[in-house]
């Protein structure tokens, strides 16, 4: 598990270490030099600081074994610090992977219908207050495209992202990639919607509940419902898979490690905040002012 998680990260780190370290506030100014040989650049800067420091205190000393020994010690400490950062980054990557796995299990295993009544329950979950459902729900949960709307919105609002975007290669959230993923997800979403509309449009043909149909065979009304619900169940399963696909694409393809973490934090925070706002409102009584006039009078 650890080994598999590390490999891609290592690659990632080799490709992006310079960028990453800039984010950590460590070194890096000039990308041209890093491209040629990143390590050398870091060493040069470290060397430079060390020299400056030592120059003031030990000016006049001869070149000696002692000085070389100090230089090696310094290097070891510095490398140790870098390695620590590298390990932290691996740990972060593992956490991201773990988080994705949790979502995979949630959408693809935990929240799929098992009993017949689960189908209705998942479409209109009782655990989600009506205001939350009305604000963002699609087949009972977040729209897959809303996950991408969230990424885009966060990207627009994050000052750190926009400031770093000009200095490094393009925006840290790749808008072109994001649009690509957005298109793909929207198409899939529309297909699922179409399937659901088709099921609903046709179900009336099978769910007529006429006394005749009910008498034909025992429990046949239930049989019709089962048949229709099985179709809806398939739609729900697809919708859940698409939600996970949107998350996975965003985290693995579009966002950097840092932005993926920010995204997960915001995703959880926003879900929670929306729930907090919606929850107390479910107790409101819906009142209606019936007209004074009767239907007959004008």
């Amino acid at each position: 598990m650890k080994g598999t998680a590390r490999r891609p990260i290592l690659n990632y780190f080799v490709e992006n270490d310079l960028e990453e370290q800039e984010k950590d506030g460590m070194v890096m100014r000039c990308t041209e030099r890093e491209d040629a040989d990143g390590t050398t650049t870091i060493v040069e800067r470290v060397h430079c600081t060390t020299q400056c420091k030592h120059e003031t205190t030990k000016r006049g000393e001869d070149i000696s074994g002692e000085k070389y020994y100090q230089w090696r010690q310094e290097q070891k400490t510095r490398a140790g610090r870098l390695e620590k950062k590298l390990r932290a980054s691996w740990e972060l990557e593992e956490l991201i992977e773990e988080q994705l796995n949790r979502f995979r299990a949630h959408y693809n295993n935990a929240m799929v219908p098992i009993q017949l009544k689960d189908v209705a329950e998942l479409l209109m979950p009782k655990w989600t207050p009506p205001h939350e459902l009305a604000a963002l729900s699609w087949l009972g949960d977040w729209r897959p495209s809303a996950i991408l709307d969230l990424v885009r919105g966060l990207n627009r609002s994050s000052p750190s992202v926009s400031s770093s975007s000009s200095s490094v290669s393009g925006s840290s959230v790749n808008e072109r990639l994001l649009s690509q993923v957005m298109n793909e997800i929207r198409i899939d979403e529309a297909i699922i919607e179409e399937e659901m509309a088709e099921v609903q449009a046709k179900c009336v043909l099978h769910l007529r509940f006429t006394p005749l149909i009910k008498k034909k065979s025992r429990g046949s009304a239930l049989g019709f419902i089962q048949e229709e619900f099985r179709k809806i169940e398939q739609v729900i399963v697809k919708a859940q898979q698409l939600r996970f696909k949107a998350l996975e694409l965003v985290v693995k393809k579009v966002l950097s490690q840092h932005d993926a973490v920010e995204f997960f934090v915001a995703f959880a925070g926003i879900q929670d905040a929306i729930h907090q706002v919606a929850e107390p409102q479910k107790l409101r009584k819906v009142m209606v002012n019936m007209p004074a006039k009767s239907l007959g009078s004008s």
Partner: protein
Amino acid sequence: MPKPLSSLFSRKKPEKLAFKYYYTNWFKTLKNTLLPLIRQSLSSSSSQTLLYSHVDLLLNHFLSYYDTLDLAASQENLPQLLFPSWHNNEEDDDDEEFCGLVLDVASDKQRRPWQVLMAWKNVSQNLTTRIEQIECGLRLMVPALISRMKKLQAGFMGRVAENWVAIDRKNDGVLKEVIIGEAMKEEMEEMVSVFVDANRLRKSVITEIVGVLSAYQAALFLEGLAQFLVGFRDPELLREFERCKDSDQ
């Protein structure tokens, strides 16, 4: 108008009513009064005049439900009207169902007078074309409504997300809820108009369909529609449904 409905609406002052209460009464009237009435008038002993009046009653009952939904539709109420606790989950009707229903009533073979049995036999080409036109119109209108709703939801998410980073840094829980509350309110205000338009579409589809049908055809169509709604609430069915362990069984 006959008594069951007028007694509900004949008060002098506008009456403030809990929607849940209204819906329960509306449903009871449908199930216990109007559905038996239309069945009765479809049976052999009934007169044409009675049939017309019962078709009218049932049609108005459906239309009045959508009118009342419109009356209740405010920014605050909309979420609960969209996701009502007083409904069964599986009872939500779809506009396109009406057309499907109309074409299917033709296969009904209950023991009824000849005119009733023949009402949906040999349906004229003209009628089929008219119904198909109505369905065609629906298939154009429904996606537009859905797309308006989609845009509103995306707008809500965009607005919340764009403010999120700034609020999150302040770590102010109250401010978060204020911003989300505002965005939600704005979204619901605009969604009310989508909801009202969807109800208008539902009303116009039912009215148009009944408009192109003969009295017998209309009676059978409305009976089917009423039966569809009532059937979902059949207590025996609901019990079986709850018991049903596996959707594959």
